[in-house]
């Protein structure tokens, strides 16, 4: 997927974040959301390795080895940020004090089940903070490509990969669609400006509920 599409996903998710919310962004497309968060809304980014108030990357030569983001790269702290240890960081996550987490996914299904940490036999990077984030955050937003590299749907009827967490996903945003997970099923609330409902349905492996009034993004 090209950068334009990745940025489209990030931009749409940024619009969803309410004022004064505490947000954790995962690695990959979720990280791109940072660039679209408007200033002055009081939104603070939580970094699971131990701080709230993640700022922009530092200028070359200004890196502080004692402050990195969750990917291990040099980071900065915004004014009003604060630092803590990992136990406190995960108390924030697990204790329901984190408003939003934005994560990537390998598969998401109709029940809001999420698989994003392993492909058995192929890909075993580990779990990191993904299980705690998806269980603990008040809102779990998935940012991902609509289909896999091989063109297979990533939004499926039932996840086939090992689950990161059952029934925790609230929103799925891809380059094609904005989908809300509800007790009734997946509701297609918006489609991208360059696609059609038919195209979205064709590339989705799960049942979609299509309301009369459909938004565009």
């Amino acid at each position, binding site marked *: 997927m090209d950068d334009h599409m990745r940025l489209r996903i990030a931009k749409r998710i940024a619009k969803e974040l309410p004022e004064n919310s505490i947000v954790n962004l995962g690695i990959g497309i979720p990280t791109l959301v940072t660039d679209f968060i408007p200033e002055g809304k009081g939104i603070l980014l939580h970094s699971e390795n131990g701080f709230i108030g993640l700022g922009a990357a530092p200028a070359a030569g200004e890196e502080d080895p004692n402050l990195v983001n969750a990917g291990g790269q040099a980071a900065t702290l915004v004014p009003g940020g604060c630092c803590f240890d990992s136990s406190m960081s*995960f108390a924030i996550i697990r204790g329901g004090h984190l408003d939003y987490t934005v994560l990537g996914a390998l598969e998401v299904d109709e029940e809001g089940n999420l698989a994003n940490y392993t492909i058995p036999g192929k890909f075993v990077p580990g779990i990191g*903070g993904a*299980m705690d984030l998806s269980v603990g955050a008040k809102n779990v937003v998935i940012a991902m490509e609509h289909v896999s590299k091989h063109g297979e749907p990533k939004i499926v009827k039932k996840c086939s990969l090992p689950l990161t967490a059952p029934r925790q996903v609230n929103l799925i945003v891809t380059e094609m669609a904005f989908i809300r997970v509800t007790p009734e099923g997946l509701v297609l609330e918006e489609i991208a400006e360059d696609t059609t409902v038919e195209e979205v349905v064709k590339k989705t492996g799960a049942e979609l509920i299509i309301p009369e009034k459909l938004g565009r993004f």
Partner: protein
Amino acid sequence: MKPVKTPQQAAENIKDGASVMIGGFISCGRPSEVLEALFEKGVKDLTIISNDTSKEETGIIKLVLAGRVSKFIGSYIGMNRIMGEKMKSGEVKVELVPQGTFVERVRAAGAGLGGVLTPTGLGTAIAEGKEVMTIEGKKYLLEKPLRADFAIVRANKADKYGNAFAAGSSKNFNVAMAMAADTVILETEEIVEPGQLDPEKVTFPCVFIDTLVPVAKAVMGRN
């Protein structure tokens, strides 16, 4: 007052078969010089307990490549390919734990608790073989305490009693690990007299620290 040792002296009592906690998140707040001494010493059959395996050229992976690690317990091994390969080949037994569960199991061991009840991992492979308990109508997974023979942790500044300060995001797992091992070795970039460390800026109270090891200042991305 706590003994001040060289990395070699600090590593002296770490013998074959020991379990060793290593603080740090990737390169940040990651001990290095005692790990290097451990490598030089040739100690083997180690159980390493650390959030991640950091980068390929650094401490834990050096030990792994030399065949000194029999088990690794942590949350993430994706920073390099080595551990994944050793896991697949069966050379190193790997236990993956969700990061929040990992730190809380360590903290539980250090805090005298018999375990942690967490919703994390319910309905996933992590729950296999573990007890599920219902408390006030909500389900939780019982996760047991995780302790070690040794912990190697890191701070920026310590006084001679072992009170220590770790800046920014370098506190990470160092704090919980300092509570959870029989012997705790603190790598510190600076050692000061009692009274020279602001008591309001103590990240680790001195009670947890057994040995101080003065080390060089951290360099971005190195450890």
